[in-house]
């Protein structure tokens, strides 16, 4: 009987000692954080206070391949609609208008609905003329979800554009006097 009492007593004190030792061990591990002693950047505060550019990442600190908000350079866009087809969430809408044969394609509507976009990067990968790219911008908050639909298209063809084409075509067919409309020298 005595051996069992002694062993339980020994176990009791060992348990108390182990508790105290691990309490002290954890305390010493956390102490350097309190005193920031010789820890270089191992133990510095890591809170990023967002709008302040010094302590938090801004657009240009992000790595080159970051998939941020999209931007389409409409002049290079050939309206091949590959991006519209491959997009998993169908958030790109492209519409073109008919133009005279030799003129460049007129992309009247190129809308990306950033409410649906999941920034997967497939459209950028598929775009041959590389006009659709990921910018490193990430601040896309708006008050009304309808404003999330950004449009990059050229809009419907205006009257003066039609007149320009008509004049260009007339020049090709020789019906037009090239000098008309210029200031007399």
């Amino acid at each position, binding site marked *: 009987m005595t051996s069992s009492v002694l062993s339980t007593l020994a176990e009791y004190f060992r348990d108390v000692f182990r508790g105290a030792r*691990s309490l002290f*061990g954890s305390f010493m591990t956390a102490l350097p954080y309190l005193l920031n002693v010789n820890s270089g950047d191992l133990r510095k505060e890591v809170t990023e206070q967002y709008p302040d550019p010094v302590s938090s990442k801004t657009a240009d600190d992000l790595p080159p391949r970051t998939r941020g908000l999209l931007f389409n350079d409409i002049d290079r866009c050939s309206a091949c609609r590959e991006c519209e087809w491959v997009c998993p969430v169908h958030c790109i809408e492209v519409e073109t208008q008919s133009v005279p044969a030799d003129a460049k394609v007129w992309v009247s509507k190129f809308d990306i609905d950033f409410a649906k976009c999941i920034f997967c990067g497939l459209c950028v990968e598929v775009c041959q003329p590389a006009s659709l790219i990921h910018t490193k911008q990430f601040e896309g908050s708006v008050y009304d979800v309808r404003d999330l639909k950004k449009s990059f298209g050229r809009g419907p063809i205006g009257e003066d554009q039609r007149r320009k084409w008509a004049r260009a075509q007339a020049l090709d067919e020789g019906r037009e006097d090239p000098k008309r409309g210029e200031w007399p020298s």
Partner: protein
Amino acid sequence: MSLREYLATDFTNWSLGPYHPALPGPMMLRLQLDGEIIVSGETEAGFLHRGLEKALERHSWQSSLTYADRLDPESAIFGELAVCLAAEEIAGIDVPRRAQNIRVILSELTRISSHLGFLARMAKAVGSTPMFHYVLRDRERVLDLFELLTGARFSINFLRLGGVSADVTEGFIERVIDVCELIRIRLKEYNDLFSFNHAFLKRSSWIGVLSSERARALGVTGPNARAAGLSLDVRKSAPYSGYELIDFEIPVGRGEGGTIGDAHDRFVLRLREITQSLEILKQSVDSIPAGQFQSVKISREFTIAPGEAYSRVESPRGTLGCHLVSDGGTRPARVQFKTPSTGHMLTIPELVIGTRVEDISVILLSLDISLAEFDR
């Protein structure tokens, strides 16, 4: 009403969820309590069903991978890898060595990031906020690597049929080695601060004991099964994507804190798995071969020959199986995922019986269940 009826006591019915800080995700947990002791528990899920498998059937082969990486948001690459391996097996596409190596690197980095998420949740469940913040701070370094290589932090959408979508930039290899060194130092700090802390031992050892027989009977795989003593690991039993060239050993539960298969064993096992992943990363980063990173250019009319395949992948939560059927069209005919969380959810009613109300969060979070993966 006789006195006996009047004084009769009954169990308290308490249903937790769908949102509750003690639960690993949106699920219901219907408990019968006798005071503080739990008499019986029953789970109900289905709150995160997004119809992923139906969506995969309606999209082309290219964009199906984007949906596959949303199977388990915390370890995105394993959904993609499962679908890629199955599709490549059907279509007979062979993946260049360099792409396989990049896939192994990304898998091990995701495993580390998912296990760090597990450590943070366990620390929060037990109430040690310093450990919680240290772990999340170190996970940021791993997520920076993902952003550097793929452009996104969690849903990286980086794998393509036949390889990866972009090559590894030069600075990436050095950064991976630096992060490995940093995490090795941090692991030592976690052990000093938290893993064998007496109070944490008391909260998690002998709690939620999962024996190896019950683990096998309920179809539990992955770290939870290894902590129970079964050494099941797909990377060893059916190696894929170049794992046969890497030598690493599978850590099995030793039951230092209490017994084999308790919550503390599962916690410490994941720490060992992080060290093992660091080993694998070191070997695969040193031996990355030159060469092509993608063997197939996918256009709009890309189709895969009719056929079916079943691929197994070792995800941080267990064995993830993907049964892919193709009927020769431009879209997968059927994609079915067998997720490890299915088995883990079955163990909850058994592990919860007889424990106290305060132990629920420790048991549930020690199983590392992802509800997004369970409901699909």
